[in-house]
């Protein structure tokens, strides 16, 4: 075999040698193709595996950590929550609708594979600036693709985030998360147990789509990406809806021995992983695989990434039952092989062996690399931000309006009104709050779900950025009254073979791990997306954190909106707002510099404990953490839903500048509103918990009225709420109509 052949498949020379060693001979083309997809970064995590070991993955609630298709966490009452996030960045960059749609389809399969009913979707999106028509096409397409798939399949999309920044112009990020609820007794695994058991392929027919899709995901986007276009597929949410029903019905009947979805690397991945996990082998005959196209070669069948397919392992006697159930749902189910005991994946075509290799070697024995690391040179420069570089703006109202209409801060209603966020009638806190809350039927409980990340922070300081991504997610849950349980993450970075990029990656994971440890929220699964680069450079390092929390009593939930005129507004927590890495600095001063807000994890934990306890004790009418846009934005966001104005007076103690006080960003802080008669009780609680808390204003009138006074200084924002709401709500829509 000529080196060109393996090079073309992205197999390195030393990797080819490893394959020869494993097989004791040269691989044939089918085998080489199978190794190439399984050993790609996307499937094997060969560059990230070692680093990911930093993550804590266990505690008393974790029923299943990373390794299977998704992690499982105990939520009491014999129930468990299952969740995972996945990226579909590269396909979305060239076909936004279908790229995003098939991303949603893929992550849903990961959830119901485990035996869980998918109950919620979230998404985390990054694009370049909306002034660019191509970006608007991408953004519009991605959102309607997520809507198209999620709405059709009937799983509510209940939350997410969108940021716009030049670093994502050529390489948007599309991360989707799915959450499922299951009976703990129904956990099903991707394991091919039981020699002689039948292997059944169900769902869509196999076509040539997505051939070398995983290799595509493991490369930088360049001119040639256009050539690999067929790597994008069309999703069929209708078929997947039927698949969910049929698979869950069979799982419920207890006839499934093992089950796995076909995602990246298709049949190759499903057969080898299922066999490897169970310590068995698998033999299939691909001439039995239902095809969509004629003349497909064996290697094409083995690595095709056609969507909406699953692989089942059942006892021979159950074959007929499986077929019956699938038939009822108008789906096909075809026996294509059986489980063997020789630990080999053996692929036949009409009885003739076309590929044969140890299952483990494909699934678990990819080479592991420890890429080099080097601190990027920009890191030192960006730290040198001083206030003298930030001219003091003249008009606070003008600044405020600019920030509130920045697409990063403006209402995301344009996005989530396209998503059915109510189907299944369990969404009790709808999009627009810090986290969405879902009820769990038949119990008093609820879960809160959120997804968060801040690429700008992570760019300026990946370690701190990693910590704060976790802290912000946890804070968002706590503000709805939920106790954070566990994390799933999506790590979006550039090319890991570049030492500066790998340094960002390593530092971010280190930070996240530290935070997850401190919060006791283990990582139960996730996804790494490297090579998010174009000729113009890498994206911001963007670790995204998906988190699930538990409300023991749904009646104790809390939202961000003020409830009643006359309520007091309090500011909780401590920490100094900073301009570093803030939206203010970016929008008003066009600077990307400074240190992102510091965080003291011990303080943060105290702070979160206090908020949670106060909410549970019924002392709090609304709670909202400070994040992008700082205090001014957090105060305003509470006004929007019920059109209730505020009157807030702040005094700038020390010599902090008013613009930084209002718009600077900070960790470990939240705006609370309370009934006046709860004042003493909540102050006492804060005192007991060691968390600073002070009253800064009250809910009043129809204006947004915010005043800062200090030694020889008085600045005020005084605007009719109606005007603010209109501008905030319409900002993204306005830009999309350009």
């Amino acid at each position: 075999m000529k080196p060109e052949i393996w090079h073309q498949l992205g197999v390195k020379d030393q990797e080819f040698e490893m394959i020869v060693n494993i097989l004791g001979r040269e691989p044939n083309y089918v085998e080489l193709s199978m190794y190439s997809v399984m050993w790609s970064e996307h499937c094997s995590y060969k560059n990230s595996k070692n680093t990911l070991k930093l993550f804590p993955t266990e505690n008393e609630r974790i029923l299943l950590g990373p390794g299977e298709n998704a992690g499982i966490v105990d939520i009491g009452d014999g129930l468990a929550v299952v969740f995972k996030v996945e990226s579909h960045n590269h396909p979305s960059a060239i076909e936004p609708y279908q790229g995003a749609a098939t991303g949603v389809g893929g992550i849903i399969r990961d959830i119901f594979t485990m035996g869980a009913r998918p109950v919620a979707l979230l998404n985390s999106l990054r694009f370049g600036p909306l002034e660019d028509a191509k970006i608007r096409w991408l953004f519009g397409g991605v959102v309607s693709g997520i809507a198209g798939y999620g709405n059709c399949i009937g799983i509510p999309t209940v939350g997410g985030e969108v940021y716009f920044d030049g670093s994502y112009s050529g390489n948007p990020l599309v991360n989707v998360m799915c959450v499922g609820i299951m009976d703990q007794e129904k956990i099903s695994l991707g394991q091919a147990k039981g020699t002689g058991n039948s292997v059944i392929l169900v769902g869509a027919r196999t076509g040539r789509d997505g051939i070398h899709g995983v290799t595509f995901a493991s490369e930088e986007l360049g001119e040639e990406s256009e050539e690999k276009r067929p790597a994008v597929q069309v999703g069929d949410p209708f078929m997947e809806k039927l698949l969910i029903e049929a698979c869950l019905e069979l799982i419920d009947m207890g006839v499934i021995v093992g089950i796995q979805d076909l995602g990246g690397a298709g049949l190759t991945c499903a057969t080898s992983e299922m066999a490897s996990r169970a310590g068995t082998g698998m033999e299939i005959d691909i001439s039995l695989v239902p095809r969509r196209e004629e003349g497909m070669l064996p290697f094409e069948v083995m690595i095709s990434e056609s969507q909406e397919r699953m692989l089942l392992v059942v006892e021979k006697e159950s074959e007929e039952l499986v077929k019956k159930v699938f038939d009822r749902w108008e789906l096909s189910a075809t026996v294509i092989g059986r489980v063997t005991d020789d630990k080999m994946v053996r692929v036949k075509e009409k009885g003739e062996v076309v590929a044969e290799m140890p299952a483990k070697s494909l699934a678990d024995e990819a080479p592991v690399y420890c890429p080099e690391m080097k601190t990027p040179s920009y890191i030192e420069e960006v730290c040198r931000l001083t206030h003298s570089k930030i001219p003091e703006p003249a008009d606070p109202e003008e600044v405020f309006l600019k920030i509130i209409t920045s697409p990063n801060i403006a209402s995301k209603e344009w996005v989530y009104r396209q998503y059915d966020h109510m189907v299944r009638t369990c969404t009790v806190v709808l999009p627009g709050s810090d986290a969405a809350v879902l009820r769990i039927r038949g119990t008093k409980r609820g879960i809160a779900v959120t997804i968060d990340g801040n690429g700008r922070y992570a760019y300026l300081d990946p370690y701190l950025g990693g910590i704060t991504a976790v802290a912000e997610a946890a804070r968002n849950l706590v503000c709805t009254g939920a106790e954070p349980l566990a994390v799933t993450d999506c790590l979006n970075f550039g090319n890991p073979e570049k030492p500066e990029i790998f340094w960002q990656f390593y530092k971010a994971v280190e930070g996240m791990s530290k935070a997850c440890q401190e919060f006791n929220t283990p990582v139960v699964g996730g996804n790494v997306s490297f090579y998010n680069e174009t000729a113009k450079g890498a994206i911001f390092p963007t670790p995204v954190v998906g988190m699930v929390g538990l409300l023991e009593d749904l009646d104790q939930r809390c939202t961000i909106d003020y409830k009643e005129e006359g309520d007091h507004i309090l500011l909780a927590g401590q920490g100094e707002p900073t301009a570093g890495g803030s939206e203010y600095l970016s929008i008003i001063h066009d600077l990307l510099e400074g240190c992102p807000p510091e965080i003291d994890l011990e303080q943060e934990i105290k702070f979160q404990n206090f908020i949670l306890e106060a909410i549970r004790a019924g002392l709090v009418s609304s709670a909202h953490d400070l994040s992008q846009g700082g205090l001014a934005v957090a105060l305003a966001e509470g006004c929007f839903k019920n059109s209730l104005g505020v009157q807030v007076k702040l005094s700038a103690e020390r010599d902090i500048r008013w613009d930084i006080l209002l718009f600077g960003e900070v960790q470990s802080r939240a705006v609370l509103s309370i009934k006046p008669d709860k004042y003493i009780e909540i102050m006492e609680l804060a005192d007991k918990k060691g968390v600073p808390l002070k009253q800064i204003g009250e809910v009043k009138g129809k204006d947004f009225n915010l005043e800062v006074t200090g030694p020889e200084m008085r600045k005020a924002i005084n605007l009719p709420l109606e005007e603010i709401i209109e501008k905030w709500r319409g900002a993204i829509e306005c830009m999309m109509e350009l």
Partner: protein
Amino acid sequence: MKFGVVVFPGSNCDLDSYYMVKDVLKQPVEYLWHRDKDLKGVDCVILPGGFTYGDYLRPGAIAGFSPLVESVKEFAHKGGLVLGICNGFQVLTEAGLLPGALYLNISLQFRCVFTYLKVENNRTPFTNLTEDRALKIPVAHGDGNYYADPETLTELEKNGRIVFRYCNPEGEVTKEANPNGSLDNIAGICNEKGNVLGMMPHPERAGEELLGSDDGKIIFDSILKFWGEN
């Protein structure tokens, strides 16, 4: 009173209607499978929302041909109560049980938002308990833009067959209150006899305060009252 919720391939609000009847209304309810002909003796058939057959070709088009819909037609002709919600409404128009058609929202986008409904006819079996105020009930659809030719429209108007129109919270029928471009803000219509109602908004999603509104329950309570009196 016994309810039946039809399940087509791709229905996804079947569960919501089911729980609405079972847990909120506390009435017996059964699923009805699209391939069957048997209505299991139910007193009211609900065609739920969702994406039957993926909404491929046209929403509701393929489902309109299922054996169960044949039975529903017979049932309706005999005066049985039929409630089509969202995709269920689309199935009813495609199957010829209600006039007109529902097509692409004027925004070209799916819309999931709370809307307000003005009740134009409170003498139907579905609205007899409504009072003189707008009902807060959400929509969630991509094809809710109602169209009928002018003659049909006049006929609907004249005979009180326009049951709901989108309005603002104050009850005024305005352009801004229309989420999909529907002709004359039409949100729901009934057949001549009034026993078949199709509506785009989802009353089953507004059955409990917890979900942001319980105005949808009034529609189900009306059905119960009508059935009790007949």
